[in-house]
């Protein structure tokens, strides 16, 4: 028994070392911009960079739109599949699994080919069109996570009873979805939203191949040309990811659960 616990500690300690060492080293490295002293200069330099603000703002905007579009198409689909079209469930699961099978680089390659200037829907002709395309690309990348988050949320509430109650009180399906179902799974929707945010904010391949000024492209640029700023960016990104995941876990505790325990 003692040996078992001893080995468990050894494995845990080795794992912890592998995972914490790069974070610690990166953090210390990011403080060394000024020779001989530990300062936050690299962070100040990054935050003061106008391109940082512009690209971060661009990616944030993309994330917000990707979340809105994602919720708008996934919520009704997941709701009605759970309520009336149960037999469509395998198809939904398959479709939402596809973005994990098709690597992002293939997805954007397909987009570039399908929506180029000589196609029926030439989205890549204008900056605005390309922005629309990149948001749709992000919605697609986040689809597996958004669908699972919302579907899990729907499973924890009693969709059938809530819908019946709303319908008896005279609500039409849209009203039911917006003012009954949505508030009840708001926490699940939020966790889908934060996952989408985590995916979009540092995304590189789509933005780079579509030539959009996103945060990922900026990070790549800094990484290729600077010494200390990349580590500062890595620490900032890690903090952002940690923040997004932390919020999701926190939200999970406050999720309302009205489903009957059969």
């Amino acid at each position, binding site marked *: 028994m003692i040996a078992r616990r001893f080995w468990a500690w050894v494995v845990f300690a080795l794992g912890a070392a592998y995972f914490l060492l790069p974070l610690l080293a990166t953090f210390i490295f990011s403080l060394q911009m000024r020779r001989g002293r530990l300062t936050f200069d690299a962070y100040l330099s990054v935050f003061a960079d106008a391109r940082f603000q512009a690209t971060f703002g661009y990616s944030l905007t993309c994330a917000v739109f990707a979340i809105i579009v994602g919720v708008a198409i996934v919520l009704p689909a997941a709701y009605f599949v759970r309520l009336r079209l149960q037999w469509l469930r395998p198809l939904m699961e398959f479709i939402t699994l596809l973005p994990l099978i098709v690597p992002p680089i293939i997805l954007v390659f397909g987009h570039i080919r399908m929506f180029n200037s000589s196609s029926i829907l030439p989205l890549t002709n204008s900056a605005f069109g390309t922005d629309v395309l990149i948001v749709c690309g992000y919605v697609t990348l986040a689809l597996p996570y958004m669908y699972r988050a919302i579907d899990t949320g729907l499973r924890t509430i009693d969709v059938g009873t809530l819908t019946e109650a709303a319908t008896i009180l005279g609500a039409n399906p849209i009203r039911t979805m917006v003012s009954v179902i949505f508030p009840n799974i708001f926490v699940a929707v939020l966790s889908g939203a934060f996952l989408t945010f985590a995916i979009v904010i540092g995304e590189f391949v789509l933005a*780079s191949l579509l030539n959009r000024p996103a945060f990922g492209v900026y990070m790549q640029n800094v990484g290729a040309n600077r010494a200390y700023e990349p580590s500062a960016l890595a620490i900032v990104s890690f903090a952002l990811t940690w923040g997004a995941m932390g919020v999701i876990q926190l939200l999970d505790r406050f999720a309302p659960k009205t489903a009957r325990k059969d």
Partner: protein
Amino acid sequence: MTNVSRIADKTAGPVSGPAALSLNSPMLGAWLGVLPFILFALLFLVVPTLSLVASAFVDGSGNFTLQNIADLWTDQVRSAFEISIKVSAASAFFGAVIGLAMALAIIRGKLPGAIRSTVMTFSGVASNFAGLPLAFAFIATVGRLGLVTVILKTVFGFDIYKSGFNLLSFTGLTLTYLYFQIPLMILIIAPAIDGLRKEWSEAAATLGASRLQFWLHIGFPILWPNLLGTLSLLFANAFGAIATAYALTGSSLNIVPILLYAQIRGDVLHNPGLGAALALGMIVITAFANVIYIVVRTRAERWLK
């Protein structure tokens, strides 16, 4: 006959509440709700991918050809697939083994409960911490001027780069990929290990089985479909990844996604048809790995409820 169908209508009706007055409208509403999702998936996921795959079989003037696939058999493309498969397989294998060891340690190793929840939360973060920042972190740690490299050299007089290590290589890339592969393994395998009921090991112990015998005859036979499934998922995960490798090595390490990236940007293979063929090759490999995952997972779910 009409009576029977009317009774059937009545008994089926109340499921959808008062709206059953017009039997068709709730179904129509449901379809209208699902339609945007289906259209979106077709327009931005299914059709672009399928048409890309199809264009691998078309030549410059629109005729069917297998020439693009045949042209993939060049040294450059073949070595790219070789390195990609090696890196993905190595990072999947070590990620699975180390992740399994860590999951076993925190779940069955009687470590304090706080450690378990910390590791699970951290795994959620680390499995999402990929791409460019991960590459930056490893450059700052074990790059040529990285902190660990420098400390080992100045304090211990040990130069890891002189002893053959290079971050911009197969080993370096595998070491970096493990940072998201191990946590992903922990996240996926932890529920499966939880599913190994305490009663089973107690029953085995009562019958005189040693711990080794328990794992050989009960633990691993139950876990292996999960292990194999997760292994193929990790493989696909690493195979499609590009940002980390690109930030780490630029285009000096010839892996398939980087080759495809360069091909899309500037036709480095000097043949536009080859891009589609390359994409087809990638999809075939990741789809194969994922099919194994799905098939095996349905098997695994028999025992672990």
